[in-house]
Each structure stands twice: as structure tokens, then as C-alpha cells.
């Protein structure tokens, strides 16, 4: 079981950090096309909230149907590949949207959802999915729902600060985004390699 908990913590910290890192970076992706106003932050935050909500519901539902970490990992791989692709498709998407929608509030909202809906909704599934799996054990675990959210939020704290204070000054945004996608993909493969489901007797 220690491997199972290690996998859970790895997933929670990694994806907790990456979603917030992407949230910070998204303002750099949006501002050339929609300006740097407070509206952009409104769009970014509200879009991510919608993605989180969808991910929470989907993660809870799927964990009840398929309480196996491998199923979650497959979704996370799809999300990771999407993130790796963002630097190649965000420019034409933003160009297209900003050319067709004059209102920067609506435009940035549409662009944010086109670019981030899939990966962030998938990544937001991690916490409820893990809570669902531990609930399926039908026995007490030290990894309570509160602990799951705590570990994920600690990851988010580091993801936010490391990105805003250091990464943006060191690397181009496109390279950071690809790097985050690759980290997510590696963590997903590692999770599969560690065969946590077998440890859990699934």
C-alpha cells in the first residue's frame, strides 16, 4: 500500500501544481490577443472554475464506475498530450476568436474554453477520483478527503509561485507549457509502471 499512497500523492501534487501553473501562464497567452485588462483575469478564473466543476463531477462519477487508478491515468495522458499541443494551436485559435468576436470579455472566455476545457477538466478529476477510490476501499484510510484536498492545494501553491516568480523570467511560455505537459505525461507513465491497481488488489 505505500506505493499506492505514493502514487496518489505524486498525482495530487503534480496535477495540483500544473493546473495553477497553466492558469498563470494563460494570461500570457491571452493578453496579446485580448489585452491585459482585469477582464482577462475574470475570463481566466471563471473558465478554470467551470473546468474544475466539470472535472470534479466527472472524476467523482468515473471513480464510482471504475475505481482504478489506471483508468484515471489514461485520461491524464490525454490531458497531458493536449497541453503539449497548446503552443502549436493557441495562436490560430486566439487569432480566429479575436477576429470574430470584438468584445474582449466574450472573446477571451471563448478562447480560454477552447484551449483549456479538455485538459483542465481532466486534471481536476484527480482529487475526486482519488477520494472515490479510497471510499471504495470501505475501510478507514489516513488519506481523508480533507488530506487529498490539502496535498493538491499544496501542489497548487508551489505551481502558482514557481511559475509567476521564476519560470516566466527564465523560459519562454511555450517551452514552459510543453515542459508541464511532458512532466504530466511522465508522471502518468510512472503511475502505470508502478501498477498501483495491483497493489490495491484491483
Amino acid at each position, binding site marked *: 500500500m505505500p506505493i499506492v499512497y505514493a502514487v496518489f500523492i505524486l498525482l495530487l501534487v503534480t496535477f495540483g501544481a500544473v493546473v495553477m501553473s497553466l492558469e498563470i501562464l494563460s494570461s*500570457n497567452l491571452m493578453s*496579446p490577443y485580448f489585452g491585459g485588462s*482585469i477582464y482577462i483575469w*475574470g475570463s481566466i478564473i471563471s473558465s478554470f472554475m467551470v473546468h474544475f466543476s466539470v472535472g470534479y463531477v466527472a472524476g467523482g462519477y468515473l471513480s464510482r464506475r471504475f475505481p482504478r487508478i489506471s483508468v484515471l491515468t489514461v485520461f491524464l495522458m490525454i490531458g497531458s498530450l493536449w497541453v503539449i499541443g497548446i503552443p502549436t494551436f493557441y495562436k490560430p485559435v486566439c487569432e480566429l476568436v*479575436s477576429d470574430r468576436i470584438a468584445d474582449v470579455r466574450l472573446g477571451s472566455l471563448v478562447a480560454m474554453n477552447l484551449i483549456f476545457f479538455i485538459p483542465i477538466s481532466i486534471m481536476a478529476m484527480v482529487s475526486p477520483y482519488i477520494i472515490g477510490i479510497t471510499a471504495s476501499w470501505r475501510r478507514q484510510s489516513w488519506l481523508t478527503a480533507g488530506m487529498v484536498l490539502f496535498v493538491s492545494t499544496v501542489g497548487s501553491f508551489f505551481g502558482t509561485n514557481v511559475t509567476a*516568480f521564476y519560470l516566466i523570467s527564465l523560459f*519562454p*511560455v511555450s517551452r514552459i507549457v510543453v515542459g508541464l505537459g511532458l512532466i504530466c505525461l511522465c508522471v502518468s507513465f510512472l503511475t502505470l509502471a508502478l501498477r498501483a491497481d495491483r497493489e490495491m488488489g484491483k
Partner: protein
Amino acid sequence: MRSCSMAGLIFLACLMAATPAAAAANDQTLYEGDSIYHHITIREDGGERCMIFGRQRDLRQTCIDLAKPDASVFEYSAMMFAGFLFRPDAKKVCLIGLGGGYIPTVFRMHLPKVRLQTVEVDPHVDKLARKYFTFAVPANQALAIDDGRQFLKKSRERYDQIWLDAFNSDYIPAHMTTKEFLQLAKSRLNDGGIVIQNLFCDNKLYDAQIATFQAVFAKVFVFEGQRSGSCIIVASDRPACEPAELRKQAEKRGGKIGRIDLLAESGKCRVSLILKNAPILTDDFNPANLLLMQKK
């Protein structure tokens, strides 16, 4: 949940924006309140009225002399008008950043033949400039409430000069510092047009901005402030003159634009150095606000 604090800040800012203009805290404070972008204070002191952004009351401000509204209270605005001499026959100018409206006032009073298009992102700044700074939009001027980069992108107009005055000492709209933005600005210039930008020169962003301008324009000149920390960048592919000839250009105009002494200001101009270690800012690599905080 993760973005609760940021969402809370935005909510708080909206609430504060909706609050009626705050009462004067003392005799000198004419207004204190918030727009969706700034905390704004308007103070009057010794015949000068200032619009102050943020809470660093000594740095981020725009002032006018009430008795002489065309007198340049700050060195940077006088240097920007000296930059005008690099394209002295300008007929159309675009100014990004209104503030208290000092620059449009000088255009209105002393360059009435120039058509000035001002762009200001904050509608509240426009209201305050009209109410407290006698800012008005005469027939040959226009004002757009829009983000500067979005305005230039949408506009099909060509300008002889584009002035960038949307920068503060502690915050810069990063998307208006990049190579892509300057390429956009250049594409909105007439042949021989110039871009003039106001900056503070004691930080690493200044070097990065010069390097970025040099990546886009053939000629980049700088005015270095002597009584302030302000610097002005002037860039063009084909300026009307070199810095050494600026004094002659100033003399042709009688040495003055209104109360601004062009002869004195033109002496502060030189060709910018090639800065090998400064990064070129792009939409992809843009730590502008972090560089702004790093002193040289």
C-alpha cells in the same frame, strides 16, 4: 477553490469601483477612489494638480500646473515632445495612455494642426481627466477607450507618430512591451514614422526594451533624464534627423513647443548603445514586470 483569493480580489475591486467618489481626506485631496484598474487619488498642492495611480504617491502620477496647463511638470513629457522633432511634419499622432491629459492639452494648445488619437484603457481615468484636469476632446482630436494593443490591431489608420505613455513605475502592461507589439505599431506607421515610449531607466526592463526596439527598428535613440529617473526611447526606420541634428530641428521650430524648451531637451538625446546581454521581449518570453522590479 484554488483561485478563490484572486476572485475575491476582483470582487473587492468591483465593489470599490462601484463606491461613489470618496470624500476628500484633507484639503489637498480632491478625489480618492478606485477604478477597475487603479486606485486613483487626485491631489492639489501649490498650484499643481496631480492624478496619482496606486499607493506610491511619489512615483506614479501625472500632474498639471493649474495656471500654466501647458507647462511640463515632469521631465519625461518634455523629452517626449523633443522626440516629436524626429518627425516634425507629423499630421497624425496616436497617444496610448491618457493620464490627466497633459499631452493632449499641449497638442490642443500648440500643435492644433496635428490630428491626435488618444487611447486610454480605463474609462474612469477619462472621466476624472475631464472633471479635474480640464481635459477635453477638440474637433481635431479623438479618444478611444480601449486597450492600446487591441486598438492598434483593429485600426486601419496610419500614424506619423505613436506615443506610448501607458507605463508606471511598478507595473507595465507586458503585452505592450514585446517585439510583436512593436511590429504591430510599426505596421501602423507612415513611412518615416516614429514610436516614442516613456520608461524609467534604472531597471533591467529599460535595457530589455531598448534591445527589443533595436530588433524591430533600424534607428533607436534615447533621451536620458537629468533631473529624474525617466528615459524616453524614440525609434524609427527613417527618422528626419540624427540626435546630433536635433538642436537644428528645434531651432527651426523656434526652440519651443508652447512652454517646453526643445533646445534644452534635445541635448539629452543620443543613439542607444547595443546591449548584448539584454533579452529581446516577445509574446512568448516576456518577464517585463519582473525585469521592472530588478534594478540595474
